[in-house]
């Protein structure tokens, strides 16, 4: 199946397929996978127009680059000019932004075709992609042959209804979109793991870049000091391609670094003997499933057997991380959500007795419980009498957590290898038994430290669980060393040969051109 951008790019250049054909194919697939609820808005008209423009460029022999004509999807918390941006919230339902987020603009400037906006947890708060106003996203693997084979349904309909599993979150829509082949890459966001978590559950590569590498301008902010745009693709090479298009200083975002960024082609590593892999023992958390522990172990052995140094390391402040994350996250959320008052844009309540009562009603009507809960917590932590004890303390501990990583990387470790999630994807009916706060606390535990420390991290799909669902592992790298991180990830990807999802809906769309590309790989 058309896994790899380079290949499809070559196919476009050679005329084996045209951008319009590709776009139509993807749009058609979106329609037939509608039950996944991955997309909130499908921008059919504009996508076809973009495909047309791309086609003209290919005909002239002047494509803009590798991404020209490549269909992509964008999480619905990135501003897109002329296309609704809702953040899966009543607060922004019907909101049409007047501008493109920098990352969206960069993709469009490279000729990418924007298929639509994907579903998420409301305002990116959640780890299941279940708490948005448009309903939950279904993990495509729920409908895979691999999963169906492993579960014994009481009846055919029973399986479909009650056994479908979540995508993880909050970028679940983007993950489902890529995983079901409706697009080649999707943008997510990652504040505490929101790109890596769904990547793990959907069998995808999910890259969280170093904080400051990619512009956040136009990404509706959750936690300004931790948010990053995330990249979801089906293979590591594709992630590198997208990273190349997005990274670099943005004058509109003062938190991006000034240094020039050089896009790179990933070398194909053959010799890992010079590599030092760290295994942080604190990531062996209670609640980590035996299965994932086994996969993690096997991966460590894989590196060892290939000649790399695999060393157990300590990140002593790890256990404080999730608590500090919650304090800092809710504080910034409370601040960032203050702008939603119904006056200038978005939902405005009919209540008009006074400005204050209008604000209160608007925010009650516009936000779900999760968002309101975080705002209340955050404001509590920011009160004068609490600020020192919560916010400042959490920032201090954050520094300690970041220093843990600095020490470890300074001692000769190149990359850290950890699990991404505690288990494979759980069925939706199980997931909703616990509330969002509880779930987030559990699910973010392995991923949020990288956000606290601003480090790059990537989920690489590794193996299938006993239930036939994807399990991924996380690699964490040094600041701004994405090239090294992705190189190691690519080597690992090649070793584990994670199987392709077998989806009936997708197979049905198989046409001649793509058959031979089914299991090809670039190196």
């Amino acid at each position: 199946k058309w896994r790899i951008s380079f290949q499809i790019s070559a196919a476009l250049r050679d005329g084996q397929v045209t951008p319009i054909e590709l776009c139509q194919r993807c749009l058609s697939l979106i329609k037939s996978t509608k039950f996944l609820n991955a997309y909130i808005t499908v921008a059919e008209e504009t996508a076809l127009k973009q495909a047309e423009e791309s086609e003209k460029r290919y005909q002239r022999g002047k494509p803009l680059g590798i991404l020209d004509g490549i269909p992509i999807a964008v999480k619905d918390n990135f501003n897109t000019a002329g296309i609704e941006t809702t953040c899966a919230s009543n607060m922004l339902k019907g909101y049409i932004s007047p501008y493109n987020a920098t990352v969206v603009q960069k993709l469009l400037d490279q000729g990418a075709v924007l298929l639509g906006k994907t579903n998420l947890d409301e305002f990116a708060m959640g780890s299941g992609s279940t708490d948005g106003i448009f309903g939950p996203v279904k993990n495509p693997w729920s409908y895979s042959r691999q999963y169906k084979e492993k579960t014994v349904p009481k009846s055919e309909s029973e399986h479909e209804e009650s056994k479908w599993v979540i995508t993880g979150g909050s970028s679940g829509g983007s993950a489902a979109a890529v995983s079901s082949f409706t697009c080649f890459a999707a943008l997510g966001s990652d504040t505490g793991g929101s790109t890596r978590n769904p990547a793990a559950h959907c069998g995808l590569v999910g890259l969280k870049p170093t904080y400051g590498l990619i512009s956040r301008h136009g990404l509706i902010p959750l936690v300004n000091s931790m948010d990053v745009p995330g990249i979801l693709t089906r293979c590591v090479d594709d992630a590198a391609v997208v990273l190349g298009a997005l990274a670099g200083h943005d004058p509109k975002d003062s938190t991006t670094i000034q240094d020039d960024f050089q896009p790179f082609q990933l070398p194909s590593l053959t010799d890992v003997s010079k590599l030092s892999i760290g295994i942080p023992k604190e990531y062996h958390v209670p609640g980590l499933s035996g299965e994932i522990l086994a996969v993690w172990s096997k991966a460590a052995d894989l590196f060892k057997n290939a000649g790399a140094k695999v060393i157990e390391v300590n990140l002593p402040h790890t256990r404080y991380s999730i608590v500090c994350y919650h304090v800092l996250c809710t504080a910034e959320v409370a601040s960032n959500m203050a702008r939603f008052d119904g006056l200038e844009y978005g939902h405005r309540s009919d209540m008009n007795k006074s400005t204050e009562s209008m604000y209160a009603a608007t925010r009650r009507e516009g936000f779900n419980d999760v968002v309101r809960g975080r705002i209340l917590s955050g404001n509590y932590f920011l009160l004068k009498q609490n600020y020192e004890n919560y916010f400042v303390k959490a920032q201090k501990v954050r520094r300690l957590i970041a220093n843990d990583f600095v020490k470890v990387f300074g001692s000769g470790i190149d990359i850290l290898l950890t699990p991404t999630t505690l288990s494979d994807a759980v069925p939706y009916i199980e997931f909703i038994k616990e509330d969002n706060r509880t779930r987030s606390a559990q699910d973010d535990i392995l991923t949020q430290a990288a956000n606290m420390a601003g480090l790059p991290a990537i989920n690489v799909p590794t193996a299938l669980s006993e239930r036939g669902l994807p399990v991924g592992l996380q690699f964490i790298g040094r600041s701004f060393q994405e090239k090294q991180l992705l190189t190691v990830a690519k080597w690992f990807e090649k070793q584990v040969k994670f199987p392709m999802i077998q989806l009936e809906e997708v197979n049905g769309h198989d046409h001649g051109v793509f058959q031979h590309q089914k299991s090809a790989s670039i190196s």
Partner: protein
Amino acid sequence: VLNRRCVEAAVMTGLALNCSINRKSLFDRKHYFYADLPAGYQITQQRVPIAVNGSLSYSLCIDNKRSQMVTKTVRIKQIQLEQDSGKSLHDDARSQTLVDLNRAGVGLMEVVMEPDMCCGEEAAAAVRELQLILQTLGSSQAIMAEGQLRVDANVSVHHPGEPHGVRTEVKNINSIRFLAKAVDYEIQRQIEELENGGTILNETRAFDSKLGCTVPMRDKEGKQDYRFMPEPNLPPLILYNAKSLPANVNHQQVVNIDWIHERLPDLPSVKRAKLVELYGILPEHSFTLVNEDGLTEFFEDVVKQTQMKPKKVIGWILNDLLSYLKQHSLTVKESPVSSFLLADLLNLLEKKEISASAAKQVFEELWKGEGKTPLEIVKEKQLELIQDQEELEQICQAVIDEREKEVIMVVLG
């Protein structure tokens, strides 16, 4: 994104006010809900502002005649950069508020003074001097009527030797004149209140310019918790000096305090001193010159173009030109009499071709702005001074001959 020009303006102003410039300053969010605050918070510098601990010297006339000036100083606590909010216009008639967001987010510089001033006159003089400094630096046009300079006065009273009393904040002051009035009114009000056994509330009051008094402001709530938080989108502001400037730096990306210092223009106080030294005019004169926009340039232009001594020119500038301008509410730039024309006139006077009183008549004519030169006016009105001795004797003789009676009375005493 931080506006470079704002940073430069703040550094310039800080240097001009003898402040210590903080090489590292921070930005914070100040949260409150209000219709004209679209983000729900204002970005300001609560923890570490850009400049601290400065001073501003200003002068006051001891009496009204401007003959004796005394210099005073007010300490500058700090200068901080922050964002402006929008503007709210309350339409009570229709129970609605109109919100104008055009200026929301524009950079502001807040200059905080210590309570070193004791009356309206001092406050007015200090603010006037600050205004001149800002205009000289180019940091701001500082026109109060247009909201480019906004002044809030914090007033308290106390018995000598006792600590400062509770202060009130007075807002809605739209001119320097009103500032003096508002401060004096508030001082009186507080004294009366206390002498009647009342207490002063730590409140915000608005100055009502029509009634000349202060009234409590209606929609300011009690003490708010602003939930200050560091602004995560703006890294700490690092300023450099010649020593700390890194080697391979992009000059577009840094602000160098020393570079700015070298390029500071002459401050008003320096300008005044130079005028006094250069032209031999009195300090009071230099005050008026610098105080009036464009007047110094006008004066210097005239001096260049005439042989009359500056000490005499200044009289014409301050007594004649300025009073005409004030009478007709004109600025120096709008003067119908240009420096060229005035210099021309003064040259005639200096060469004794006309008398002083004739010159004043010519000036009045020039003021009409009909495009005539002084010489033309002199000829037209036959104002020439007669230099010829014989001619003069003839005229005198003619007068004496005509007025026999009066002459006899004069001779008799």
